[in-house]
């Protein structure tokens, strides 16, 4: 299957995505912000549809909308209860706009399917380059951020007293989630971003590993699930996103069995 150029592209693209989504997802689960991640994918959808309508590359729209929305969410962040309602409202508004933009687009059906369910088999060289570039940039930011982020996620009051700016850390992190979401949407589509972002992170958390090991484990799982999904899709001719979703849930359930 690697004899085909589009398959090699797909494997490379999903590796870029998994390497960023795995560690970001681990933190997302630790911080209990999975819902925010879900919302960002829907906002990214509106951004991508809007970009397509304006004739810009959908990937740019995806990335731009998700990163900006993540930053805004971090800057205005409040208590979780109130935040969930606010996020839910913005999420549905974004989805609504996404639908409108697609309606205004004449070639909407194919674009909509690609955005919603992913199009990893149609990755071009230029797209791969931008996926790789944003994965590298994201990992550099995460490398700098991860220590205060871990501290602030586990013990916010203490971290604040130790000089960590909770708002700065949370804003940078949500922008990172936006970037990872946009990358993920490229492979799994916006509706199934959870499979690569939250699934591996949640499974690694369930195993109760020490943080650095858990982060590596989440990354490995994300990569394994993405490549496994591609391989299974090749054999069965069923959609990649379907297989990634199945693998993600199976791994999560198995991780529960391993719990000490």
């Amino acid at each position: 299957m690697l004899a085909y150029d589009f398959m090699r592209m797909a494997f490379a693209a999903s590796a870029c995505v998994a390497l960023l989504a795995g560690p970001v997802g681990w933190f997302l689960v630790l911080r209990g912000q999975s819902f925010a991640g879900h919302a960002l994918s829907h906002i990214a959808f509106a951004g991508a549809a809007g970009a397509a309508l304006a004739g810009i590359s959908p990937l740019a729209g995806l990335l731009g909308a998700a990163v900006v929305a993540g930053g805004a969410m971090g800057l205005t962040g409040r208590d979780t209860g109130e935040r969930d309602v606010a996020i839910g409202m913005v999420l549905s508004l974004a989805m609504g706009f996404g639908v409108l933009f697609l309606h205004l687009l004449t070639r909407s059906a194919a674009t909509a399917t690609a955005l919603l369910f992913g199009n990893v088999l149609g990755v071009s060289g230029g797209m791969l380059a931008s996926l790789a570039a944003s994965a590298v940039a994201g990992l550099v930011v995460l490398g700098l951020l991860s220590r205060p982020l871990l501290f602030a996620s586990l013990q916010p009051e203490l971290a604040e007293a130790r000089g960590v700016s909770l708002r700065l850390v949370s804003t940078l992190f949500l922008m990172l989630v936006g970037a990872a979401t946009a990358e993920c949407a490229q492979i799994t589509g916006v509706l199934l971003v959870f499979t690569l972002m939250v699934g591996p992170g949640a499974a690694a958390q369930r195993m109760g590993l020490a943080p650095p090991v858990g982060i590596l484990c989440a990354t490995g799982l994300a990569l394994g699930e993405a490549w496994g999904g591609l391989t299974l899709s090749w054999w069965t001719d069923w959609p990649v996103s379907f297989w990634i979703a199945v693998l993600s849930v199976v791994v999560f359930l198995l991780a529960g069995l391993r719990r000490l």
Partner: protein
Amino acid sequence: MIKAPGRRGSAVCCRGVTLDVGSHAILSDISLTVEAGSFVGLFGPNGAGKTTFLRALLGLVQVESGDIMLFGDAVTRGSRSIGYMPQSRTPNGATLTGRDLLASGFDGGKWGVPWVSRAGYAEIEAVLEAVDAVSLADRRLGSLSGGERQRLLIAQALLGSPRLLLLDEPLASLDPARMREMALLLRDVARKREMTVICSAHDINPLMGVMDTVLCLARGQARIGPVDEVVTSEVLSALYGAPVEVCHAPSGRVLVSADGL
């Protein structure tokens, strides 16, 4: 007892400090000095400003007026000379072990990846030993009792060998025997490490014999002094604005009792 500011031997020196929460003054124009090496019990009714006072010492709450000096220096946020144990103490990450938790906070204010050096782990072991929590360190946080978790967080507050330890209600939600055990542990650790301790609490009794100084905050005012001067029916009744009885039991114990205290 107000002493000259910045005087050698004072751990905390407040001059005319006013602290606001929102637009509401919670402490107004208080002046007090905490001697280095003392163990201070911090008391006061709910909402009297105990936590706000501790947060002001950490630089997390800006003083509205006046100034606070710690060991002769102005307050700086994230100071290495202060160890802190905040009040809400149910850390996230129930599947992590105690050692993971301490490692995650180790130098947690610095940018970078959360990798702890061998020297870092040695320091973590040392503070765990200091509070007799080594056996807790390998257990998952979710499986620890409240008292066990508190012990770990006290160990964490000792990281970096602080000179001043600020403890926000370390005895809360413990049964009486555990309360006393924790109070004695705090006294021993503070003595051994020559730390000044400010420990807020709801109940005065568990800290009797442990603290040497009492700081009472009530109705915007502060009163500090040796235990036998402040823990009297007159002073406490005046501070709380409600009748407080201080009884000297034949055993030599002092018991403080009041409706709703």
